C-alpha cells in the first residue's frame, strides 16, 4: 500500500514545534507593540484647520502657554482659546494673511473653528489639569517640546501604564511651580537638582491617587 503522505510531511510537527512558538511570540510581540498607544498614538499629528505654529508663538516669540490656554489652572481642561484670543493680536498683525482667514471669519460670524483634538483620552478616564499644575508637573512633561512643534503632535502615549508610572513615583517629574510652563526645563539636569520635599512654597506633599476612582468615575 503506497504511503498516503509523502516523506517530507514528517517534518511538519517539527516545523510547527519550532516555528509555532516563534509565530506566537511574534503575534504577542506585535500586539504588544503595535496595538499600544506607544505606536498608535505617539506621533499622531493631524492637520489643523488653521496652520497655527506653536514653534513660532510659544517658541520663537516666547509667549506663555497660559496666554491662550488660560483656564488650565481653574478647570479640568486647558481650553482651546476662543477666536477672540487670536484676534487680540491679529487685528493688528498679519491682518490680511490668507492663512488666518478662518480665524477672522470665525470672529465675525461667531462660528467656531473646528480644531482637531490631538490629546484624546478614553471617555471613562477623567483627567484634570488643576492638581497636576498645583503639584508642579510641567506642560512639557506630558505634551513634549510644544515650543519646537510647528504642527502639534502627541509626544507621550498617555496610556494608563504611563500615567501610573508617574503616579507611583511622582518626585522625579516635579519642578518648582513657577517653572511649569518653562519648556526648556530638563528633567535630567534641572529636575535632579530640585527636591520637592524641600520646596518652601509647597504646603503639602504630592500624593497622586493610584486607586480606580482617582481617574474613573
Amino acid at each position, binding site marked *: 500500500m503506497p504511503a498516503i503522505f509523502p516523506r517530507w510531511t514528517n517534518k511538519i510537527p517539527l516545523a510547527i514545534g519550532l516555528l509555532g512558538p516563534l509565530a506566537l511570540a511574534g503575534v504577542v510581540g506585535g500586539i504588544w507593540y503595535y496595538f499600544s498607544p506607544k505606536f498608535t498614538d505617539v506621533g499622531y499629528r493631524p492637520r489643523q484647520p488653521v496652520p497655527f505654529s506653536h514653534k513660532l508663538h510659544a517658541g520663537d516669540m516666547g509667549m506663555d502657554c497660559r496666554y491662550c490656554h488660560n*483656564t488650565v489652572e481653574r*478647570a479640568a481642561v486647558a481650553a482651546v482659546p476662543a477666536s477672540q484670543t487670536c484676534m487680540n493680536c491679529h487685528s493688528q498683525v498679519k491682518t490680511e494673511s490668507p492663512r488666518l482667514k478662518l480665524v477672522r471669519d470665525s470672529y465675525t460670524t*461667531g462660528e467656531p473653528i473646528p480644531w482637531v483634538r490631538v490629546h484624546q483620552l478614553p471617555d471613562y478616564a477623567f483627567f484634570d489639569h488643576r492638581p497636576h499644575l498645583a503639584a508642579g508637573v510641567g506642560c512639557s512633561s506630558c505634551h513634549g517640546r510644544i515650543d519646537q512643534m510647528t504642527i502639534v503632535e502627541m509626544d507621550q502615549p498617555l496610556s494608563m501604564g504611563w500615567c501610573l508610572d508617574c503616579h507611583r513615583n511622582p518626585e522625579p517629574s516635579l519642578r518648582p511651580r513657577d517653572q511649569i510652563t518653562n519648556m526648556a526645563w530638563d528633567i535630567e539636569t534641572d529636575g535632579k537638582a530640585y527636591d520637592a520635599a524641600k520646596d518652601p512654597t509647597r504646603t*503639602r506633599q504630592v500624593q497622586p491617587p493610584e486607586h480606580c476612582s482617582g481617574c*474613573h468615575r
Partner: protein
Amino acid sequence: MTKPTESLKTYWRSLADLDGTMAAPADEFPGAETTATLLPATKLARRKFAGLLGASTALAGLTTTGCVRKPVENILPFAKRPEDMIPGQAIYYATAYQVGHSVLGLLVESQDGRPTKIEGNPRHSGSNGATDMWAQASVLGLYDPDRCRVPHHLGADGKHAVSDWDTVTEELGASLKQLRDAQGAGVALVIPTVLSPTYRDTLRTFKEKWPKARIIVDDAAAANNAVAGAELIGGAGARPTYHLAGVKLIASFDGDFLGTDFDHVRLQREYAEGRSITSPTDAAEMSRLYVLEPHLTVTGAQADNRLRVRGGDVGGLLAALADRLLGEKDVRLPPGGETLRGSLPRATLTPEQDKFISALASDLNAARKARRPSVIVVGERQPAWVHGLGFLLNYAIGNGANSVRLRLDDLAVATEGLPVLAAGLRDNSITDVICLETNPAYDAPGDLGLAEALKGKVLLHLGQHVDETGQLATWCLPAAHYLESWGDLEAADTTVSIVQPLIAPLHSGRSALELLAWIASDAQIDGYSLVQGYWRTVLGPMYSDRVWRRWLHDGVVQGIPRAGTTPTPRDLGGLTTALTAAGSEAAGSGYELDFHLDPKIVDGRHANNGWLQENPHPLTKLTWDNAAYVSIETARKLAVENCDNLRISLGGREIIIPVWIAPGQADDTISLPLGYGRRNLGAVSRDSGVDAYVLQSGTNPWIAAGAEVARQGTQRMVYSTQNHGSLDPGVDPASTKDDSQGWNPGRGYPERPIVRQTTVEGFKKEPNFSQKGDLIAKENLRSLWDHNTHPDLGPPALIGLQQWGMAIDLNKCTGCTACTVACQAENNIPVVGRSQVANGREMHWIRIDRYYTGPKEAPEAVVQPMLCQHCETAPCENVCPVNATAHSPEGLNDMAYNRCIGTRYCANNCPYKVRRFNFFNYNKDPVNDNEMTRMQKNPDVTVRFRGVIEKCSYCVQRIQEAKIQAHTAGEDRVKDGVIVTACQQVCPSAAITFGDVADPNTKVSQVKQDGRNYGVLTDLNTRPRTTYLARVRNPNPELV
C-alpha cells in the same frame, strides 16, 4: 452572645413575605435559571440579535482594515467666550419651581449651557436647600423628546398641521382681536394656580381688556380646599400656612403634609428637626404625630399613632375632636363662636375611633396647658369646612399665628372653578376657551364631561405637550419650560423668587406669561422685559440694576414693600353655615373612592417622565402604573388578588383598573392615584396606568361614596419592587442546626434585624437597643486574614488621610424617594422600562426598602434607604476575577466600568443587594439616548454600557472635585461639609450625613457617636461605612 431583643419586632416586605408564600429567595437574580419566566426585552429578539451580530462583524471588518485610530474628535471653542464661562466647569443659577401652591427655590447646575441637575436653594424658605422628586425630575422634562416643538393649527380635515409663530401672530391674532373687541364675551381663560406677581399683574391687564371673559383655574395639585377653608374663617384673600418648627404634637386629619400636600418640602424639614434626637432625654421631648387617613401615605408611615378611616369620616372625627376640645372651660372661640359647638356635625364613632379621638383630645389639652406647641393639620383632600374647622381649632387652643398662620393675599385675582366652565359650555355662554398650560380635557372631574364639551371650543392651547386638550385645540402652541423662561414666584410665606432661564427655548416655545401678555393687549413683549418691568414699577426709585442682579444671584427677592395685614378668625357665620350643611349630609355608605395626587407624577403633569414613572411608589413600590388600593378585608370581600381587574362605576361612569392590596388601607375604601392613563401624550406615558379622573365629581373631587365595585374577571399586570433585593433569607425550615449560639447567622434564625426601632419608652430602658440587634457582637468579629501577612486576602489598607462614610437617620427619613431620583439625575442612571423592572432589573442606586410591622391589616411602616454600604471588607471585591471593583485607600468601594466583564459575582456576593447590572445597553435605548435627553447627562460621570455592574459611588465625582479644589489650594484635607452627595443634597429631612469618619470632629463622626447608630448585617464582618440611626417612635401609651 447577644440575640435580637424583644424591642426588635418582626418586619415584612409584603403580604406574601409575611404569609410565607413569596417565591424562594433563589429568585434573587431572575433569569439565572428560569429565563422562560422573564418578560422579553422591548427590542432585541434573538433572531434580530443574530442578524445584527453578523452585520456588525462585517462592518467591523470593513472599518478596521482602513483605520486603526480612534475617530477624529473636534474641539469647537467659542468664537468669543462669554465672561466667567470656563468650559467644562459647572455654573449654578438660582431659579424657582412651582407645583400647585408649593414653591421651591432652586439652584440649577448648568454644564456648558445645558441645565443638568436641580438642587435646592438654601436661601429659599420653601426649599431650605432641599427639593422633592418632582423638581429633581423636572430637568428631564425639559429634554422630553415628546414635547410640542412647533405651533400646530387644526385644519378643516380635523388634523393638526404644522404652523409657525408668524402665522399664529397674524391669524390667531386676528381671532383674538375680534374677541377682545367684544370685551371677551364668551371667552374662558383656563390657567393653573398663579403665584407669580408679574403673571397676576398681567392677569389684571387681561381682566381690564377682556372684562366679560371668565377666568377659570384648573389645577388638580392646588391647595384649593385649604385656601377656601382659610377664607371661610379669615375672609377673602386669607391664605394658610402650617409651621412645624418646635411643634411637639401634630394631628394630621387626612393630611399628607410630608408627601403631596402643599409646602411639603419645608414641612418635611421642620418635621424632621422635631424628630432629631441624640439621647433618651431628647426623645422624651420628641414630637408625636397622629394620623387619620384612608390609605397609607408617606405621612401615615411616619405616624406614631395611625387610624385607618374612610376619607368621608375624617370631617366627622375632627368635629368630634372639636366638641371635646371646646368642652374645656378655658378654650375660647373668637366672637361669634358661641353657637358653633352646637352646629358641629354629629358623627357616630366606633369604639376604636372614640378611643383615638379621646386620647388625641387629652393629649392636645395637656399640650395646651403645658404650653407645648401643637398643630392640627387638615389634608387638601378634605372639603373646605374641615379646613375651616381645623384652622379655628388651632386658634382656639393657642396655635394661631404660631403653627398655623393666616396671611392676606391682597394681590389675588378672583377666579372661578371648573364647574363654571362646564356650565358655561353647556349653555353656550362660553364658546371660546383659552388654555394656558392647563389640560381640562384630561384632568377635570369626569362628571363635568369636559373632554366632550370642549370639542371644537378650544381656540388656543399652550402646553409642553400636545396633550388631551391640545389635541382638541384649533391652535396648539408649544410652551416654554420653566428652565427656558422668565418669571417670578411667591411662596406661601411671601418669599418671592425670580425665575430665570438657563437655556434659550429648545423648541420655539413661549412662556404662558408672554402669551398672556400678548392675548391681553396684543403686545409682543418678551418675558424678561415683563418681569423686570413689573419689579421696576413695584420698587420705584429703589430699583437699580445692582438690586436686580442681587435678586438673580440669591434667588430671593428682598426689600419689597408689603401690605402687612394678618387676618384672624372673625365672622364665623360662614363656617357655622357650612358646618350645619355638612351635618345634614348623610354619611357616605358603600364603597368609598379616595382620589389622591400620585406621589410620583402628581396630577399627570410628569406622566411622560421616565425617572418618575420608574421610581417605585414610596409605599406600595409600584412602578409605571397606578392601581386601585384596597385593604385585605375588602379584597377578600371582592374576591380579588393583586393585579385582578376591578370594574368601578359611579354615576354612570366606569373604569377598569387592577387592584393592589395595600396594608393600612381603610376597609371599604378604594384609593385611586390620579395622573395615569394619558391619551397620546408621549412614548413614556403610553399604556401607563388607568385614568381615574373619569370617576371624579366636580362638587367633591377627592372623595366619593357609593361606588359600585366588582371583580371584572381579567387581569392587568402591575409591577411592584417591594420584594426586590431582600436582605433576609427568611426562615430555613430545612435547617435542623441548633443556632442558639448565634454563630451561624441566617440559618435557622427567625430573622435578621435589618431595620431597628423602638419606642421612646424602650429607648429609655435600653439606650443601646440598636446595637443589641447585632447577631454577633462587635468584639467577636474578626477577619480570617491580617492585612500585613496576607495583603491580598486581608482587609484593604485604609491609609488615606480622609475616610469617607455616611450616616442615615431613620428617625428623619420619610421614604419620600427624592434621593432615588436625585441620584438618577446626578449619576446618569438609565430608565429601563416596565418589562425590565418586572424582571427585577431596575437600575436605581438607592433602593428605599419599606418594611411593614405589626398587624397585617393596619401595620406600621418603616423605611430604610439601601445603597452601597462601602464595606471596609467588601465581599464583592474578593470575588471579582478582574479586579474591576477594588477599595480606595479612603474607604470607597470603587467600580471601574471599563474593567468589568460582567460576571455578576459581585452582585451575588453582595449581602445588601445594591449592585445593578446592565443587562442590555440601556443607555442606547431611545428613552435614554436621543438628541434631547443626551443633553441632560452629567459629563463628570461615565455613561455605562451593556454588561457592566454599577452601584452607588458616594458621588465620587463630587469627592474628587472637592479634593482637587483642596489640593489646588494647597490643602491636604477637604473641609467638613464641602462634599455633599446628591442624595444628601436633595433630602428634605436632612436625614443623610456624609463626610470624613477618620476625623472625630466632623458632623458625620459625631452623628455616628449616637447611641442609635448601627450597621446592617455587621455580623458578616463587612464593616459597612454607611450606618443607620435606629428609629424611635413616640406613640401615645394610652393607645398601645
